[in-house]
């Protein structure tokens, strides 16, 4: 018995400890910089007919623009979080209107993690990277959004940058 308690105690502690689900999207993301300098009130594949507002955290503003073998490449640091509010229609949301859902790109260990948070449930879901990434690959080549990336610069899968504008 005297050996049993020390053996069982750690198991008991472990079983009583709830593992917190990792939260990628901060509650106060709206305090971050708004990313879209073009109003996103037009439909796009993937987000369809929904008005969108994007925010980027402070870490994401440390975007590096590197020149590798003569080519310019943008690189977001690990810890970057870009949150996109997705509203119910293409109409500009009224003051205080809550979005239907949030989508987010989070840079971890050099890779983007794609997340969808449905509201008001608030549950975050990591998306199959292939689907999100396939569309966002378009950001690295000329595309029809914003400044259109005419020089085909590697934009690190992000269509709208805070800089350059």
């Amino acid at each position, binding site marked *: 018995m005297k050996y049993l308690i020390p053996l069982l105690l750690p198991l008991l502690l472990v079983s009583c400890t709830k593992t917190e689900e990792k939260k990628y999207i901060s509650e106060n993301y709206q305090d971050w910089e708004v990313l879209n300098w073009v109003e996103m009130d037009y*439909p796009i*594949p993937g987000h369809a007919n929904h008005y969108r507002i994007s925010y980027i955290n402070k870490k994401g503003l440390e975007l590096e623009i590197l020149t590798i073998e003569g080519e310019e490449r943008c690189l977001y640091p690990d810890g970057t979080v870009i949150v996109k509010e997705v509203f119910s229609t293409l109409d500009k949301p009224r003051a205080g209107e809550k979005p239907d859902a949030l989508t987010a790109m989070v840079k971890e260990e050099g890779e983007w993690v794609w997340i969808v948070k449905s509201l008001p449930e608030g549950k975050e879901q990591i998306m199959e990277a292939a689907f999100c990434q*396939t*569309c966002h690959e*378009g950001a690295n080549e000329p*595309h*029809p*959004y914003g400044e259109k990336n005419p020089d085909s610069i590697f934009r690190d899968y992000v*269509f709208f940058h805070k800089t350059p504008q």
Partner: protein
Amino acid sequence: MAERKSRIVPIAVKINLIIVFSLLAGLGGLTYYLTQSLINSIDTDSRESMIQQAEILHTSIENFMMPGEAPLAVNFFKDLRSQQDNFHIALFRSDGHPAFSDKSTLMKVNETLGVNRFNADDGRMNSASKMPLDDVMGKIGSPPVPMFAAEQVEDRFFYQVYRPLLNLPKCTRCHGSDHTIRGVIDIRKDISLTRQKQIRVLWQSSLFFVSLLLILALILSRSIHRMIVLPVSLIGDVCREVTHGNFSNHVDLNRRDEIGELGDTVNSMVNGLHERYELSKYVSGSTLQSLKGSQKGEDINLTLFFSDIRGFTSYTETHKPEQVISVLNNVLQIQSEIIAKYEGDIDKFVGDEVMAVFSGHDSADRAVEASSSIVRYINSNSEMFDGLKVGIGINTGKVIMGKIGSDDRADFTVIGDHVNTAARLCSAAKKNQVILSDSSKRALVRNTAIKGPYSLRVKGKKEPLRVYLSLAGRK
């Protein structure tokens, strides 16, 4: 209730069962694992190959469509579809209609571009029927990703890959940005032939396994039969013979293993048993009995028998040793046989003297009857004993029976005054005389011809003994 005899399960059957089960579990598991691995490997290769083909097609479509070369894509699909019978490729729009089957896409593109850039060319493609809209979306899931499916239609098997064709940003210029999925690439491969090959491989593996199992089981069972079952049977036969008193058989295995050692041990045991059996002829029954039970001394009521050859000392002086031994053995042999016949027990031979004991309620009767029989036989076969005669003394009484001697050499015998008295009566008996003590006469339970009493003075006794002579030997 009669005891139910348990049925013997032959060791060969048990060993064969163990072998078959072991082989089934071992080889069966291995064969199953290898076959499954092979089939899984083929399946995985086929699946990966088809997904790769879908990716190649996707890239091809992208490359055809970006410069607006839809006719090239149509011809490309046509070519692919005509090349292989078991390979079906189709491209569906997101509304379920086969791509290029009507003008709607071209019209939409012209509308999006705001110019009449593309002219509809009727009949470009294709004979594929419309896929229900729910099917298109259902196949690729949400979010849309390449999906693999294995389907069976009647007796044919298909692998199918649905690769979503997304409305990428670069596509939106022509196709608009109000939808996410442009369509689905549908690749279907008839793998019935491959499946048949797999089933054939399964059957071949099974057949090979069963054949291997039978061959190995046969080889192993024969080997084990030869190595274990036969020697054990042989050892059993030898032991069975020993129980019937035959010590002549031996285990001849000529083996240098545990079974060989067992055979040697059994041979040693048989030799030992044989020696003990032979020895039992020279050891009194009471001694043998004592070895089975307690060897402590105990008082017991017995009739004691002593016989002695009259004039034997002078006989030995005048005859050759071999003749002396031969005649002596004849006398002792016949006495032994007759004493045994009357359930007496030879206690010892001392020179020409025989000491025997009779136990039981009629011990005195049997001792007198044995004595009379001995006297009669020796008289009737005088030449066999070279004219020698015996004198016999019989006494009945309580004696001490026990192991007497050292740890290394001992007799299980009787001692006491009654023993001495019997010996004295024997010494006093003349040729062919059987002298009974008074206690023996009183112990007789049957009518026995005796005469007396006589008064006999013997050495060691102050008072003369009351004795009788048996008349039975004179008949």
